[in-house]
């Protein structure tokens, strides 16, 4: 059924409410890692690192189909899944950067994969076309020319992921109301 008709479907509503909560949890964990990066490397403000950002090849997942006039729920779901996959891989760089917080980073990767499969199952339940990604196809880590660049890269991976989650959250909330 077209997504519009589903606004009354209780299971779809439960899916949205549950995964809104899940997204809030992931956002909280990303924020916790951002605090660690700030405390550990004194990298706290994006505006102080804009020049460096241009030199670093930091993945940023597109979500243009999740907001504004071009909002299309099924396409947005696919973009969210693709983005979660991108950040799942990028977090490997953060894992290397913060070995002392491996548990939190790995939980974040688990949650990102879990949220993506939740969305995939929901899309399948809705009869929407879905992409099944090879589970272990990991993207190559960006090559950082120095440890400092690695730190800044880690900072932007988390900042971009937080923004991505914020947009994804608003899209899910839009569908929930």
């Amino acid at each position, binding site marked *: 059924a077209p997504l519009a008709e589903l606004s009354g479907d209780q299971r779809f509503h439960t899916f949205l409410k*549950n995964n809104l909560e*899940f997204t809030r949890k992931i956002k909280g964990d990303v924020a916790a890692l951002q605090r660690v990066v700030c405390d550990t490397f004194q990298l706290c403000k994006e505006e102080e690192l804009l020049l460096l950002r241009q030199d670093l090849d930091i993945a940023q997942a597109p979500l243009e189909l999740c907001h504004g006039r071009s909002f299309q729920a099924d396409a947005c779901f696919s973009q969210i899944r693709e983005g979660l996959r991108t950040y799942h891989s990028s977090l490997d760089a953060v894992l290397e950067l913060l070995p002392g917080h491996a548990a939190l980073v790995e939980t974040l990767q688990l949650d990102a994969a879990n*949220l993506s*499969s939740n969305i995939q199952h929901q899309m399948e339940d809705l009869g929407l076309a879905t992409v099944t990604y090879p589970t272990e196809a990991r993207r190559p880590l960006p090559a950082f020319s120095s440890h400092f660049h690695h730190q800044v890269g880690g900072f932007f991976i988390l900042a971009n992921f937080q923004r991505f989650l914020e947009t994804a959250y608003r899209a899910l909330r839009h569908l929930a109301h």
Partner: protein
Amino acid sequence: VAVGSPIVPLGSAVTASCTIQSKLCRGLEQEKVRITWMLDNEPIAGQQGQGPGDTEVSNLTLPQFNRTQAKLWCWVEWNGTKQRVGMAEIRAGYPPSKPFNLSCTLNLSDYGLTCQWEPGADSHLPTSVVLKCAGSRAPAVTGCTPQGGRSRCTVPRRLLQLYRHMEIWVSATNTLGTAESEHLCIDPMDVAKLDPPALQSIQSIPFQTDCIALTWEVARSNAHMELQCELRYRTPADTAWALVTNIIGHAGTTQCCGFLFGTQYHFQMRCRRSLAQGYWSEWSLGRNYTTHEKAPTGKLDAWWSTRP
């Protein structure tokens, strides 16, 4: 000693045979081999006869083996003495009982799912028990294996799918069969055990009324959840608690009225996810608060007693 099966259903028949090749046993060649049996310490009669290839064989049937464990000894008489020449250990029991009362709780500090169950009657046999779990559209895997004969174990986060239904059950297997518990179909988040909130402050607001304003903080591990909370309070003299329900967790403050003046009350709060009506958290640590005194109302009667 050869037995039909070393493990048999309790009460069923057991067959065994003891074969002696006397020419291989120094000192036995010439004499007439006499084979006897003992079940642990109890003599048992067998049927002895010649076996293939110049052997002596004694066959034994125990029609109803009622012990859960026993040693079946084969003896031979030699130089006027009895010699143990062979042994078979036999165990008897039942197929595993069906585990029951399976329930699970998700711990929000490590997101491990701890499940416990009742094992059912003892099968008297070595039985392997595992907790199985299967995500929707995913194959069943072993979630965890209870240690030390316990009937509980914890499925690690990496094997769970949060916010989606999973099937969870217990599987018990021994030589005589396999038994499975009922299959639980749950979203691990729906059985999350929340950490209790923390009461922060209690004040008489608005002043000079019978109302109080109470503030609290939800636990960090629940911060991302929509919570439904309830407050309970009583005076030291009360036996029953007064209960205030349907408080929105993230409000962080609530106001209640109808309190007695100048009275000490004890307050506690607990919360649960409003999405799934899952488990309540424990009650928070208690907080005492004594409401303020109130000026007496009504006309003041003044009198003066004098003694003539």
